[in-house]
């Protein structure tokens, strides 16, 4: 089924629906944000720095990784290292952002800039699912992004204050939260075998890259291979 690329709307009702669609994700998100806050406290980061990071970086995996390599005294090489790691962990956002553009382009420049700031795995995927099913209200994506941001920032602080009281994310399977959410979203994204052929290519390339290259390069390599396969093989 082709993505309707002609029009897009942005309504308050859409935002509310986006908030509703995000509710099931919030319990896990709260625990994840609290885990970040507690890890930050253990590493000697001040509470305002932890809040500032959640509010401006707003990307869980990269925040966790940066805390792992956090230092008491910073140097230029250490700063560059954090920037490189952040770029690697978040590189998948480049492709997510690209896939959003045909929908997003109907909004004004300022709104696009704001909505891109709110880009996360969750609201991107919820938005893409809604879009592939023929929806066009950008409020879904915006409302979802806003509620994710508010909850992410708000839940960082109690985690920080509770410190060591917040259990390890692993104990609740939360280290697999994103893969589990992603796998569930495969079901509505599934439109038959032929449109899914690029996914198989993506999966193979990702596995091979994962075995050969360090870090998170495998996401980019697999996804690009999938997009290329999609371009070469028609699905209609």
């Amino acid at each position: 089924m082709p993505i309707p690329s002609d029009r897009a709307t942005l309504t308050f009702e859409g935002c509310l629906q986006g908030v509703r669609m995000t509710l099931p994700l919030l319990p896990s998100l709260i625990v994840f944000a609290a885990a970040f806050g507690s890890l930050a406290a253990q590493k000697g980061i001040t509470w305002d720095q932890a809040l500032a990071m959640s509010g401006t970086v707003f990307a869980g995996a990269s925040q966790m990784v940066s805390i792992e390599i956090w230092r008491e005294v910073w140097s230029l090489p250490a700063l560059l290292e954090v920037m490189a790691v952040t770029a690697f962990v978040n590189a998948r956002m480049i492709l997510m952002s690209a896939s959003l553009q045909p929908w997003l382009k109907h909004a004004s420049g300022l709104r696009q800039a704001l909505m891109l700031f709110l880009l996360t795995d969750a609201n991107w995927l919820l938005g893409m699912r809604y879009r592939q099913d023929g929806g066009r209200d950008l409020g879904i994506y915006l409302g979802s992004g806003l509620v994710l941001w508010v909850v992410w920032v708000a839940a960082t602080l109690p985690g920080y204050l509770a410190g060591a009281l917040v259990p390890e994310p692993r104990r609740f399977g939360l280290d697999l939260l994103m893969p589990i959410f992603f796998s569930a979203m495969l079901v509505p994204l599934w439109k038959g075998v032929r449109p899914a052929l690029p996914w198989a290519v993506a999966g193979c390339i990702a596995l091979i890259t994962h075995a050969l290259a360090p870090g998170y390069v495998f996401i980019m390599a697999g996804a690009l291979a999938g997009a290329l396969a999609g371009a070469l093989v028609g699905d209609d």
Partner: protein
Amino acid sequence: MTDVIAGQAGPYLVILAMTAVTYACRASGAVLMSRVRLTPRVERALRALPGSIVVSTILPIAVQSGLSAFVGLSASITLMRVTRNDLAALAGGLAAVVLARSAGL
């Protein structure tokens, strides 16, 4: 510059730098696409992206995390197919991981 990074402002500079890098990732794909003409071929590539990103992310992580991850992902997909309910799929997937791990998988 080096003194500033080593001083009190250091952590804030680091956060600012992380914010800039992350926003660059968030915006660059859209900026790039606004310069590309939407031919049917490009549209097919974009349409293949969501599923491709999803599969590229979960497959290597599942392989690396072992059996408990496979149990969790299978439970999540199955529950989603049966119930079409995000919460059921997410909660069931996490519960399956916890159970699998406590069973020693």
